[in-house]
């Protein structure tokens, strides 16, 4: 019963956020120079006066703003995000066809950065103020200051152009038509550089957090108790400290999903990875504002859903977290 109530509450909260984002989107269209018909059609190219008039009527631009907002919300609720003239496809279809590559990239980055971040952070905390610690701290300072897109370009220069180890762009070798295992390996080969680029930044973030978290846990009373009952340092670290120290890192990883999606725009652009981020870049080039609005909306929904899943998983993992 408790669980159901919790789920319902989270759903309502998530729904509210999505609603606010839709209103934001609507407001942005109002902000743009010209009216919505100019934005939706004029920017897309061929717009005869007849077509404009038809559009204005279709979108009810002669009606008051609140009626327009209502119509807009109703269309969004049925996932009707409009039509992309540049691509000749409905926006929602276009977006969903690009969702999978982005999810693959994000999932890989999330797993790699959390995993290695925990390892590095724990190692830094165990060797406090020795070279391991200093190395991790220096890497963190560097990673915080490196523009992600530049790191990607430099990796391309070194590993693709000079060494020729990895492909420069794309998700699959064009015209190879691999199937099955061979195809998976090919995609993995293309995935390495973009994933490494994004992972470097988040790895630093989680390593720093893990280090602080381990140090905090190590000063707790339960560690003294464990030591008093004769456990070895290794046992204390593995069984007691690490398990508790991981929690803030997982929380942070959940909160960072939105930032990760934003970061994937530049990385996908650099590596030509055919996901949502590259689509956003292409829509900028094509001046297809409606498509960009749709991408923003879907990404925001994605973040809300992922945050919700993380919250639920968290409550299931740690029984002390109250489902309220």
């Amino acid at each position: 019963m408790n669980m159901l109530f919790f789920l319902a509450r989270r759903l309502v909260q998530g729904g509210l956020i999505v609603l606010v984002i839709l209103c934001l989107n609507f407001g942005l269209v109002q902000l743009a120079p010209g009216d919505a018909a100019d934005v939706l059609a004029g920017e897309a190219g061929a717009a005869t006066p007849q077509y404009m008039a038809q559009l204005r009527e279709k979108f009810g631009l002669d009606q008051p703003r609140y009626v327009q907002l209502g119509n807009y919300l109703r269309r969004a609720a049925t996932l009707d995000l409009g039509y992309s003239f540049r691509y000749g496809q409905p926006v929602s279809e276009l977006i969903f066809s690009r969702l999978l590559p982005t999810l693959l990239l994000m999932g890989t980055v999330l797993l790699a950065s959390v995993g290695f971040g925990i390892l590095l952070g724990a190692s830094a905390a165990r060797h406090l103020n020795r070279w391991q610690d200093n190395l991790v701290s220096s890497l963190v300072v560097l990673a915080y200051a490196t523009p992600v897109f530049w790191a990607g370009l430099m990796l391309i220069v070194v590993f693709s152009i000079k060494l020729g180890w990895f492909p420069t762009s794309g998700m699959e070798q064009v015209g190879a038509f691999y199937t099955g295992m061979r195809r998976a390996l090919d995609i993995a080969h293309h995935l390495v550089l973009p994933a490494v680029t994004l992972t470097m930044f988040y790895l630093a973030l989680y390593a720093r957090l893990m280090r602080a978290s381990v140090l905090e846990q190590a000063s707790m009373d339960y560690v003294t108790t464990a030591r008093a009952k004769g456990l070895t340092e290794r046992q204390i670290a593995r069984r007691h400290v690490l398990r508790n120290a991981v929690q803030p890192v997982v929380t942070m990883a959940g909160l960072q999903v939105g930032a990760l999606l934003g970061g994937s725009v530049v990385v996908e652009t650099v590596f030509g990875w055919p996901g949502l981020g590259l689509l956003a870049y292409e829509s900028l080039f094509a001046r297809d504002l409606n498509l960009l609005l749709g991408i923003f909306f879907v990404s925001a929904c994605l973040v809300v859903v992922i945050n919700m899943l993380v919250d639920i998983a968290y409550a299931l993992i740690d029984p002390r977290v109250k489902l309220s």
Partner: protein
Amino acid sequence: MKDFAVRFMRNRPAVVGLALLLGVVGVALLAPVVYPGSPFEMVGAPFQPPLGDYLFGTDMLGRNLTAAVAYGARVSLLIGLVATAIATLLGVAIGGLAGYFGGWVDTLLMRVTEIFQTIPFFLFAILLVAVLTPSLHSVVFAISVVSWPPMARLVRGEFIRVRSREFIEACVSMGMSHRRIIFLHILPNTLSAIIVTGSLMVATAILIEAGLSFLGLSDANIMSWGYIIGAGRSALRTAWWVCAIPGMAILVTVMAINLVGEGLNDALNPRLKRL
């Protein structure tokens, strides 16, 4: 104040950061003196490698990359500072109101802050600049709009901490106005935290600006680091330095600001045990 300077100067990374930052500021200030012409001007053959006629070589249109990077420093620092100033004002106002008044004001403002923290902020910045058409103003506006939430949360926490102290109770019992309590008694006590977070925000703002102009979302008449990298990308195979050098400039600047910010943090909060 003297104590603060001594503590800051004892922190080696912070001093290195300060020196680097002063160097970048110096380059930014001197750019129009050393390179009086426009950085968009053609000076020689394209694709000249670095350390030839020009320190950093030339790009694909034969423009002097050294001049471009020097002018880029002006843009990055300017946008970073102005955007941070606006975001700080916004964040302090929202966080301060929420923390001071509590109750439904707090609930409402924090819900808004949460929403702004949930949405993918870089995509939102892209959208804002694209809708408002790329210009110096729209870029600064977009960066400010996406960067205030952390400041608001921090200021709210600080306000709640200070508000519960006895001397504020004394102020209230003396019948002081809210405005006087906030501006004369609470705000000065939260200033050091605001300065530290603000200095780190400048670094983030510079990174966001670089990302936006890399994607082509910048004023077309202004030479910025991200723009040079974005334009040089197509010639990565023949002229890697066109991308590499402005990127190094971003890295050095952002790192310097981060180091100074950390140093300020340690010097302003000496009692805070650093983990």
